């Protein structure tokens, strides 16, 4: 936590009240109904942590509890934000490949960690089924894991 350059007594107080919000990163989620839901998390928290800590109500999100064993924390970002999210491991990519509605700017929320540079970012929760009516030929006709 860095103090701002002017650390006069007033500056210090300002810093103290700012630092509690400086410590948080604001994320705007767009849910499946198109609603915008804003939440704040701490740097280092994953987006899944944020969804859980703030009790955000996305159906079925994070089924495997962040262990890279499912694709239910799939989130979609703008190109600009996606570039700032850092590299994707093969392990994440392998599970992301199973996500419905995969895009070039998709990530798994459990693998994306908040940094200050992501302040104000938007993350869209994509539909998890085709037209809410489940079809059998999703992706590659997977069998039970």
């Amino acid at each position: 936590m860095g103090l701002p350059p002017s650390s006069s007594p007033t500056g210090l107080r300002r810093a103290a009240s700012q630092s509690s919000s400086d410590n948080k990163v604001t994320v705007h989620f767009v849910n499946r109904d198109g609603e915008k839901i804003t939440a704040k998390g701490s740097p280092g928290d994953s987006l899944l942590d944020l969804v859980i800590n703030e009790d955000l109500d996305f159906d079925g999100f994070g089924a495997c509890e962040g262990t890279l064993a499912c694709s239910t924390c799939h989130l979609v970002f703008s190109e600009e934000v996606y570039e700032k999210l850092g590299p994707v491991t093969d392990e994440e990519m392998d599970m992301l490949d199973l996500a419905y509605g995969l895009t070039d700017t998709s990530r798994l929320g459990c693998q994306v960690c908040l940094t200050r540079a992501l302040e104000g970012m938007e993350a869209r929760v994509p539909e998890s089924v085709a037209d809410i009516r489940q079809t059998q030929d999703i992706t590659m006709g997977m069998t039970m894991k």
Partner: protein
Amino acid sequence: YDWRRNVMKAELGLLITRSASSAAHQKVCVVGGGPAGFYTAQHLLKACQDVQVDIYERLPVPFGLVRFGVAPDHPEVKNVISTFTQTAHHARCCYYGNVNVGTDVSVEELREAYHAVVLSYGAEGNRSMGVPGEDLEGVYPAKDFVGWYNGLPSNRELNPGLDCETAVILGQGNVALDVARILLSPIDELKKTDITQRSLDALAQSQVRRVLIVGRRGPLQIAGTIKELREMVNLPDTKPEMVASEFEGMAEALKVIPRPRKRLTELMLKTAVDPPAEKERQRRQAASRSWGLRFLRSPLEVLAGPDGARVAGIRLAVNRLEGTGDGSVAVPTGEVETMDCGLVITSIGYKSLPIDPAVPFDPRKAIVPNSLGRVQQAAGLYCSGWLKTGPVGVIATTMNNSFDTAHSVVEDLTSGCLDATSAKPGSTGIGPLLDKRGVKPVSFSDWEKINQEERRRGAAQGKPREKLLDVEEMLKTART
């Protein structure tokens, strides 16, 4: 520490719980305590504040394929159990294990007692190859083999013969890859998992050193996914044994396919065709076990050895592909081939079975005919999970499928087409029937005693749990 206050609090809590559930006017029953059943219940409870959901499960223990299908070395996939446990603990949810719908109570009786009945009992049967020799010793459906190492009571006595060098698996989905991996995994890895001790001991004595995973079509059609394939590529003390010519033309095809299929194919190509880096070359040279994919082969006959009773090989038709991509079809060329092997595992699909003559069933597709989860020509009857769509998909697929059915139930409960305003007895109607028939349901807290006992036994062996293999033993533990 005033223990009396705690007793009072507990009793009050119970009173509140009981009155919450008896106050719930809409009664829904779910048949099957696996992921489909639990996800359906979860969604119903969230969407309707006035619904009581009762889950009936044939075995004493819940969780279906999450317990009996997911591989022991994939414990994170089983994390969904905490969500299911939360659902079971919900004030308006009740679990009844050890109740066999179809024999202990009929679907008709459930429909009389509940406003809606959701069938989520999955797929307990096997698709068969339909070829001569399928009944020889040493031929097992993958579902049974998986059930054996995962402690499914009815597969307890499978005792698969593992005293041969080569195993052939028909099918190239994730179940086939799981079976291959369990057959070839170092014992030191397996012994830290919840694989049953019995199967661990058998695998420790196994002489299987080579596993061929055979599919009807080509590399671009395999149903398995990249995580499972990568686990084979990285499996310690094993080397891949592929036929490079089976991959001709793949590099071209790669250019036009979606990323998931592309990455999977790239991994196969790299493993099958690319000369390995020095370190990998040495690793392969030192490996004592091997695995390979074989394509464009369909089973024609399982061949017996000299004793006439035990498998010694399999005759295969050589295919060619007509069409491309997912829609391509395998067509026999007339050529035939034989593979020597002492173990054949058929991983060509699970299959749902009809459990009650009163329920419509499509024998061709082996599903309950439905539209959006509503069973056709049966108001108040629904289905979710594999019974609804066929045995395809991972847990998340089933989750969405179940939410979808729950959505249909909620729509019908609120639209008035289910006559949800007239009172139904729910479990107070079924309980006396079961009692009269000598059926004693296992509650969720009874399951928690079984759970504790399994974990206790497992801890002694450095395993997360040692599963009870026997229904009688489960019941005995539940009643302590």
